[in-house]
């Protein structure tokens, strides 16, 4: 007699907790071959706004953590992902219809990407900041700081785990907090990633993951006055110009959509896209 499996309830990830959508809505997730896999929560405008509130609340702690600490926390995500490789490989195979080798390669790449970005946490300031030789008796230094809350539309095609990791990792390096809308048709990796985050050392509220329709949720995030930046990485198939126009009302920093398999290639530019350069002048005594 075969054992009856216990299916997982896939929920949202907001403020370190796993709520259902306040709207009570779910949508069906089907495998690549069309079989029913799960009912994912279909996040609403209210869920998105709740996520922004907790992202704001956790910003001070995360941005204020030491760079060494942030680097270790991000590295630990890689450690935990490594330990749960099999689960992610399995989910990727089901939802993307790829071979074990291809799914494994995607998980490897995602883990390595966390490691690469983790190492930047205590270095990007040195690379992107500098002392400025001003013409006067002043100590003058420029350093990048996190922009604040970054809303992200995760890639809607391609590797479902690698896509979301490529989008959120660079924003986290500098100390931003994120609200990310997952891959709509293949959200299982995103939700399982939230379980990894919940058991890692990433403080609750630093990463918030919404499943559902990007077309429905993204406009609310683009116009939200307490969101500082929006990464339209996976919004290529949406009315993304309208999202950019909505974001202009609060002068959000915007990254445009990217298509293709090299979308969101790891880069220092991705980290710096969600930073602000602060320049401090201090007088020197005339002695």
């Amino acid at each position, binding site marked *: 007699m075969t054992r009856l499996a216990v299916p997982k309830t896939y929920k949202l990830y907001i403020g370190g907790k796993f709520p259902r959508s306040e709207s009570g809505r779910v949508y069906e997730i089907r495998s690549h071959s069309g079989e029913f896999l799960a009912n994912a929560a279909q996040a609403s405008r209210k869920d998105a706004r709740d996520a922004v509130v907790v992202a704001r609340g956790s910003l001070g702690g995360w941005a204020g953590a030491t760079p060494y600490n942030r680097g270790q926390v991000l590295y630990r995500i890689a450690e935990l992902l490594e330990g749960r490789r099999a689960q992610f490989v399995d989910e990727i195979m089901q939802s993307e219809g790829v071979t074990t080798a291809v799914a494994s390669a995607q998980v490897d790449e995602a883990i390595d990407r966390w490691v690469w970005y983790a190492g930047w946490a205590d270095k990007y300031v040195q690379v992107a900041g500098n002392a400025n030789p001003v013409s006067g008796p002043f100590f003058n230094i420029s350093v990048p700081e996190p922009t604040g809350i970054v809303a992200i539309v995760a890639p809607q*095609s391609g*590797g479902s785990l690698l896509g979301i990791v490529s989008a959120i990792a660079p924003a986290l390096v500098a100390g931003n907090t994120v609200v990310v809308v997952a891959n709509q048709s293949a959200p299982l990796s995103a939700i399982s990633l939230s379980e990894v985050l919940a058991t890692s050392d990433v403080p609750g509220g630093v990463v918030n993951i919404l499943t559902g329709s990007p077309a429905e949720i993204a406009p609310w995030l683009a116009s939200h006055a307490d969101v500082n930046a929006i990464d339209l990485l996976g919004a290529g198939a949406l009315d993304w110009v309208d999202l950019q126009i909505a974001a202009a009302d609060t002068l959000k920093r915007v990254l445009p959509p990217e*298509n293709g398999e090299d979308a969101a290639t790891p880069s220092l530019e991705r980290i710096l896209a969600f930073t602000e350069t602060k320049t401090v002048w201090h007088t020197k005594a005339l002695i």
Partner: protein
Amino acid sequence: MNFLDYAPAPESQAILNLQSDYGLFIDGEFVAGRGTPFSTINPATEKQIAMIAHANAADVDAAVAAARRAYDGVWSRLSGSDRGKYLFRIARLVQERARELAVAESLDNGKPIKESRDVDVPLVAAWFFYYAGWADKLDHAGAGPNPSSLGVAAQVIPWNFPLLMLAWKIAPALAAGNTVVLKPAETTSLTALLFAEILQQADLPAGVVNIITGAGDTGSLLVNHPDVNKVAFTGSTNVGRAIARSVAGTDKKLTLELGGKAANIVFDDAPIDQAIEGIVNGIFFNQGQVCCAGSRLLVQESIHDDVVDRLKQRLSTLRLGDPLDKNTDIGAINSAAQLERIRTLSDIGEQEGAERWTADCAIPENGFWFAPTIFTNVSTSHRIARDEIFGPVLSVLSFRTPAEAIAKANNTPYGLSAGIWSDKGSRILAVADKLRAGVIWANTFNRFDPASPFGGYKESGYGREGGRHGLAAYLKPANSRPVLTAAAPAPAIETASVVEPAGAPAASPTANATAPAPKPAAGKKAAK
């Protein structure tokens, strides 16, 4: 006669050789504009200085086309060292004609000659000199090896520092290898046109810099022109929003330097005499018409009354009057419209319950003037504590703890600048860390330097001007990914695509996966 009564000491206007009519500077020559010309006046006397051409759509097209030709044919092919040499020439010519430029600036803008002579024009020369040296060192600018320029830059600048803002825009753009179409503000075109003469003296290749004058409609035509690759704007947050909306869906790179409502925080251990001078400089420099002006004074409660008394005393010694007089501290407001805005907001300050104090000084009969004004009993919800007044009006608030000072300072949608006054270094650094502003002055205020990046957080805009960071606005990394545009819609999404299993290291760019570059729609139009 008391110690404040000085004999008039006006700077001579004989050094100026102005024309009665100015055309547009396109493709290296002055040409007539096709719009209706307008007059530029001296805000201190309301007398006309000259007639200025108004660029219409055809003129904007001509200027952008000239910039494109110069980019394709000359400037993008020139070596960095030669670009640098042109910029060095410009810096030297600005120094040589410094007095003339300062007089013209004070005449047209209304700012005191001591500011245009000692701050604006020297910084203009310094800006060109600084970026001249970058032109052949772009590998070190932070965009990786062999970065490329963007193309034609559309630049729209404000009236508060007309020539200085021109330098902030043109110097880094040219150093990075771009060509420029610049539109000065409607009320302050004069020094930009004198600068065009300097470009002729420098023998800068035709079309590398084009200067088109006009009002908001000209600016709008320019930033919306399909053949510009870069838009740089300094001005109000509302116009900045409109520009951000209008470039959405294009691959135009955008930098915005917008409004501010800076907090100037004075702790009880501050060096008080220096702080008073810094507060005065912070809000009354250039009649307060400065985006980074320290317009919200946050004073620790224990020294509030003392600071306010000293401020009133100090303001009573400021001399308001003829901008060309070397003893003038407070010049004219730039325009009737700006004066009206300052008056309206100040009246609202009174109506909302703040206490108004205005320095007792004689106001000249003609021209636009506003005496230095302080509001006390201001609360954070008052409009004079929230809206950018852009005039010589200081709102004073108090605080008890550093945490309260930080909360109040950050309680604004703006984030351009801030000041901290304290003798305790550790406190300054801790407070500076927590302020959400792009430029922070500790025990000083309103300092500018070409080597120092300037720009805002939040709704004060994005991008930096000045320093190495200022080059990033005009460069892109070699082989950078083409930006997706509305003109080139995204390919249909595959439901599940295969990730290549190749074990390329995470940091290396994946080869051969880049989509073909979407060409800007009008790129072909100008390539004759």
